[in-house]
């Protein structure tokens, strides 16, 4: 079991790196629309769980497209990061990553960025994820498992259908996660259905009076999740949100 010392955790935000060229070392098809890309980063530096990288594509005529993607891997994975990307049909960068990239390809990237939607080891912590909004939360959960296994962290993860569960085997390997299917539950499912509600939050066991909360997903998901968090008693200053836009 790896454990951070007082000296290295919480990590201070650092000046982000410059543009650099990473190498794809592994691609995992997580769901029909979601892939994870493991990337070897030459000028790697440790990130805070919740931070993102910018990815930049350049066409032969100089045209460029940039997007931000959350890091899914723990900063203990020295030298590499994992980016998990939802393929958006009308997207420009996500379709390239999904349809073109193979292991061994190079990708221009820069990071890690932003120091607000980050987990610095606080506990208890409740994570509310909608769809691909689970990605930065998975980074937090992976890091918590490896550094503070006794800290209380729970994930309530809302997906529309069973084939949209990202990281299913890894989530099932622990007992932190409560799944809910908002559109269609799989056959024989005896767990939760429908949107995240006060009952699900209460069932997580995280005390709103002392807990921190991270919510990530679509704007609609985050809006209802954060209002719900306020209603059940989480302090506004301990609710942090990240909204994934319909862009890609």
């Amino acid at each position, binding site marked *: 079991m790896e454990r951070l010392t007082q000296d290295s955790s919480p990590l201070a935000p650092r000046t982000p790196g410059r543009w650099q060229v990473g190498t794809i070392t592994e691609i995992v098809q997580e769901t029909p629309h979601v892939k994870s890309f493991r990337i070897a980063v030459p000028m790697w530096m440790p990130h805070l769980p919740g931070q993102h990288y910018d990815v930049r594509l350049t066409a032969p005529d100089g045209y460029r*497209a940039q997007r931000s993607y959350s890091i899914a891997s723990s900063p203990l994975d020295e030298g590499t990061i994992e980016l998990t990307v939802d393929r958006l049909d009308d997207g420009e960068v996500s379709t390239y990553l999904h349809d073109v990239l193979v292991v061994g390809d190079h*990708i221009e990237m820069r990071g890690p960025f932003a120091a607000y939607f980050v987990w610095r080891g606080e506990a208890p912590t409740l994570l509310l994820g909608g769809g691909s909004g689970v990605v930065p939360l998975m980074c937090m959960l992976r890091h918590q498992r490896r550094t503070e296994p006794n800290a209380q962290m729970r994930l309530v993860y809302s997906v529309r259908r069973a084939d949209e569960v990202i990281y299913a085997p890894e989530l099932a390997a622990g007992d932190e996660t409560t799944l809910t299917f908002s559109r269609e539950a799989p056959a024989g499912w005896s767990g939760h259905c429908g949107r995240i509600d006060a009952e699900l939050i209460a069932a997580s066991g995280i005390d709103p009076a002392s807990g921190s909360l991270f919510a990530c997903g679509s704007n609609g998901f985050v809006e209802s999740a954060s209002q719900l968090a306020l209603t059940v008693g989480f302090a506004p200053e301990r609710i942090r949100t990240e909204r994934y836009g319909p862009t890609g």
Partner: protein
Amino acid sequence: MSDFVSRAFGGRRRPPEGLEARIPPGQYYEAGFPVLTAGPTPRVGTGEWSFTIDGMVGAARRWSWDEFHALPYEDVRRDIHCVTKWSKLDADFRGVSLDTLLDGVEPLGAYTMIHSFGGYTTNLSVDDITNGKAWVVTEYDGDDLPREHGGPARLLVPHLYFWKSAKWVAGIRVMDNEEPGFWESNGYHLHGDPWREERYWND
């Protein structure tokens, strides 16, 4: 500049013909109006809303919602650029120019901290909010400014990345030194000029 070229990338979301020059580097054309907020969306009623200018000023001012609406309104059509990479062209707002609001206030410092209901802050120099560069707007696209976009009132500083255009804006504090606001303390650039790609620290 890097000479890296992405294998088999042609670009499939280029800006519409003729609009390329209005999209800053690293941005893409977006027809919609995405929502980005760091926390829960505050509920601010117009009855409790007011706008204050204070700090290092010759004469502090405060306007209630009704007093604010008695000020001269302007139609403001501008391109807006979010640091998350989208740019929206010809966004239509209505509001009051900061030149109008600052008239008679006499700022004595060169910097300001914008503050919002809900606790958000962002820093701007007095230069960046005067001479036709900034407004407090209460209408978008012919209607009341939606709550998720900062209603009842937000700042509009379209020549800088859109995080500077504080939602649910409550006031301006004039200061004689430059201090970072919320995103500026969390990894984003102190100034935020999209044409110079001032996105992050040290850009």
